């Protein structure tokens, strides 16, 4: 894997997309390494250029939605929800501001085999981890994307997924978009159609736990991408430990964020 960068990136755009959803596009002038689908970065929410800010102190882990290279520079795109102090500060960043980040970090999703059937299951902000995987796989594998949210307004990145050559299905808790119900119910239905498939899931822990149960019962492989509190993102704070299925802990940042569902002890996940 290429080495991550610590860099002050320039905000190209930062805009609300309905509900609490925001899209931030950052320009990295040079040296951004090749990004694997499922990798993440650490964004310092309050720091602007040389002006330091220590409250909130810690950078926030964010999935890399997409990284597009033009010549030497790279536009890195992040989808986020304004939920607390850190993300509120991030929403204040204006075009031209400098935002500090460290990335790309972690081990992403393995590449699918040609012709393989993939079922991607995303909920909440977890949707953002799946877009690059869906985009890169859409030409060479058979891809179903199942997205879940509370309401239509909460759903992230719908239009981006619609632009891909994938089978897109949506579930919302209130039925305001797609099927009324949980995205894991769409997964059960999709699996019931039979045949081999590999499932990739990213979202709230209960969603991924359910996806692991469903795929376990069906005997299908399932990869999950975990979100967790972390202070550094590169394996030194040891704050993002999750219990292994045998003994001890994985670090989400270093050993993941993508794991085989069977390698985790689901009862002990935060």
């Amino acid at each position, binding site marked *: 894997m290429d080495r991550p960068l610590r860099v002050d990136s320039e905000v190209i755009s930062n805009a609300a997309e309905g509900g609490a959803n925001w899209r931030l596009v950052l320009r990295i002038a040079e040296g951004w390494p090749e990004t694997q689908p499922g990798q993440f970065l650490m964004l310092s929410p309050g720091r602007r250029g040389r002006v330091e800010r220590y409250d909130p102190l810690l950078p926030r882990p964010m999935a890399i939605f997409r990284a597009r290279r033009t010549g030497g520079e790279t536009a890195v795109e992040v989808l986020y929800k304004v939920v607390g102090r850190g993300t509120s500060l991030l929403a204040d960043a204006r075009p031209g501001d400098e935002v500090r980040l460290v990335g790309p970090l972690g081990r992403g999703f393995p590449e699918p085999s040609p012709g393989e059937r993939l079922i991607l299951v995303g909920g909440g902000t977890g949707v953002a981890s799946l877009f690059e995987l869906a985009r890169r796989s859409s030409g060479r594998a058979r891809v179903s994307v199942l997205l879940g949210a509370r309401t239509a307004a909460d759903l992230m990145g719908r239009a981006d997924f619609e632009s891909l050559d994938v089978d897109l299905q949506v579930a919302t808790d209130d039925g305001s978009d797609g099927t009324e119900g949980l995205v894991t119910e769409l997964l059960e239905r999709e699996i019931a159609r039979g045949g081999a498939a590999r499932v990739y899931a990213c979202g709230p822990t209960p969603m991924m736990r359910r996806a692991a149960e469903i795929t376990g019962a069906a005997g299908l492989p399932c990869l999950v991408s975990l979100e*967790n509190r972390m202070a550094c993102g590169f394996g030194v704070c040891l*704050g*993002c430990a999750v219990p292994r299925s045998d003994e001890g802990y994985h670090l989400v940042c270093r050993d993941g964020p993508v794991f085989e569902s069977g390698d985790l002890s689901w009862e002990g996940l935060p």
Partner: protein
Amino acid sequence: MTTAPDLSTNLGGIQLRNPVLTASGTFGYGTEFAPFMDLRRIGGFVAKSLTLEPRHGNPPPRIVETPAGMLNAISLENVGVHAFVEEKLPEIPEGVPVIASVFGTEIELYAEVCRRLDGAPKVVGIEVNASCPHVKSGGSEFGQDPAVLARLTRAVRRATSLPLFVKLSPNVTDIAEMARVCEGEGADGIAAINTLKALVVDVETRRPSLSNGLGGLSGPAIRPVALRMVWQCARAVGIPVCGIGGICTAEDAIQFLLCGAAAVQVGTANFLNPMAAVEVAEGIGEYCARHGVERVSDLVGVVEFPGL
């Protein structure tokens, strides 16, 4: 001034190229930072605390953010001293001084870890983590009882010929007394401070935010407290003091030097800025150049206090 300031530092017999180290538990085993910096540009680093056997650490959640700080309860997850010597040390580039941090639940376990580090390449010193709960004292920290701290320092002093530093717990009434105890038992230097014992409660669940309940507070939030304690230690002992506590910038570090620290350790800042320690070292050099300071050691302890 025509020549660059001399940043070289003698810390209790360890020769460092500059006075900026990184704190145990915030710098892994060094190699994690290789993508971000040339490790030879900092004075050296204090590795993650080592126990005799590997430890898995606490269940999650292990960290929680606080105003300008963070609380952690990792419980000293580490690979154990054997794997450190066999697997981690060889990966560290030549020319990078490593101080090994040691830790145990009983005095004899500390001493045994020190003996296992004897003669290990690249290890230039030992830092004793005195903030561990002492099983025989009912779980209070070794560093909270002067008699226990004296016995611990005496035992590790006998177990190693390397320069020996004791990292003090701030969870005491009189930290200067603790520093004097360590000096009296033959320590070559003091490192201060470790994290402050602290608590955050989640009001929705009405439970502590960390699985362990209590945690250790670190980051800029503790810096003024740390500076006061380092100043007190430096006035109390003749051996060098390594200042630790919320240092993020060169200005922060220089405050510690002025208050008597011969060197500093950058800790929590490494998490949010993996280049922090190099930037602190460079900034100290720029400060010296700007103020016509020829040797960084000329800054140590020169703070002018009214009435003293």
